[in-house]
């Protein structure tokens, strides 16, 4: 399953690089504009569980790397073999200044809170997302707090350190 999927992916999509570091794991590097089609293709090939969306801040390269974690649900039939389990990471890079990417809610509906989370913590804009509002945080930050250039200590000093103690 892994080797055929690897060949099919590289043959079907332009600019897709597939590596399989160990059994049952696959890493797919994709250009950012073909993320929805690649995810739709993988979903059609049995990887029907979008487990997680993560983001890495490569500040030296000026890139954000978005990582989509895909696995498959256990099928109910008995033909399913343990060695067919597959864990796929789909990686893509978006530029760090004014980052944006197509939302994949149309493919995996459950990615909605993950995209909101990445939006508020890294400031990545997901085009076509119905409500990019705050998920966990309550306040607006000038620099989104999970970016590497967000100075936590200075922020804490300015926000919480400036509040005076109540004298008794």
């Amino acid at each position, binding site marked *: 399953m892994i080797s055929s999927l690897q060949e099919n992916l590289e043959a079907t999509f332009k600019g897709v690089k597939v590596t399989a570091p160990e059994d049952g794991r696959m890493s797919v590097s994709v250009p950012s504009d073909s993320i929805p089609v690649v995810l739709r293709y993988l979903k059609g090939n049995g990887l029907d569980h979008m487990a997680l969306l993560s983001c890495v801040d490569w500040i030296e390269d000026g890139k954000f790397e978005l990582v989509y974690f895909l696995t498959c649900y256990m099928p109910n039939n008995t033909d399913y073999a343990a060695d067919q389990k597959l864990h796929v990471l789909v990686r893509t890079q978006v530029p760090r200044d004014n980052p944006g990417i197509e939302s994949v809610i149309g493919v995996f509906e459950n990615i909605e809170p993950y995209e909101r989370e990445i939006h508020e913590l890294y400031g990545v804009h997901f085009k076509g997302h119905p409500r990019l509002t705050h998920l966990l*945080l*309550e306040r607006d930050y000038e620099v989104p707090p999970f970016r590497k250039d967000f100075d*936590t*200590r200075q922020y*804490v000093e300015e*926000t*919480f350190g*400036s*509040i005076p103690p*109540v004298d008794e």
Partner: protein
Amino acid sequence: MDRNQITKWLKSPGKMAHKYSLHAVYFCTGCGIIEIPPVITARWDAERFGVIPVATPRQGNLFMITGYVSVKTLKAIIRTYEQMPDPKYTVAFGSCPINGGMYWDSYNTIKHLDKYIPVDGWIAGCMPRPEAVFVGVTHLWTLIDKEMANGYIRYKKKYAAYRSNQEMALGELDWPPLYPIEDETEEESK
């Protein structure tokens, strides 16, 4: 009942009754709440000390803040605290409400809880053992005896300062002030 305390009971029965019936608001914050189930159940049995958890803040008089306080939780803490009837006692549990603890440079947790609500007792540790809770409770008894556990009185007296700190941390508050603020400033100016 301890015979030595009969004079105390006769002198100030209300205070003694408050002291030995601490109703803890079951408010879960952070990781410290994992210590509370063993404290209140059979293993350590907090009811020996008169501490029993209650369901709503309207029935409670002991408020334990059991861990780091995020900005969002602070809002819930203030609203819960303001709903509790007097007299009420606040105990900060663990090092995070004291000075931020391991979240001292986090972007979204408040560092000093006593800037926003009055705190009567502190239990240090990360996490404190259940025994530390009982040591804290017995210290709280002493404080109640000496009328030093007066956080709710301080809150009323310094409400303007507390409210302004709360607004600095949370922005515009969407509930009205608990006590009138105008009178407070007039008194101070006099």
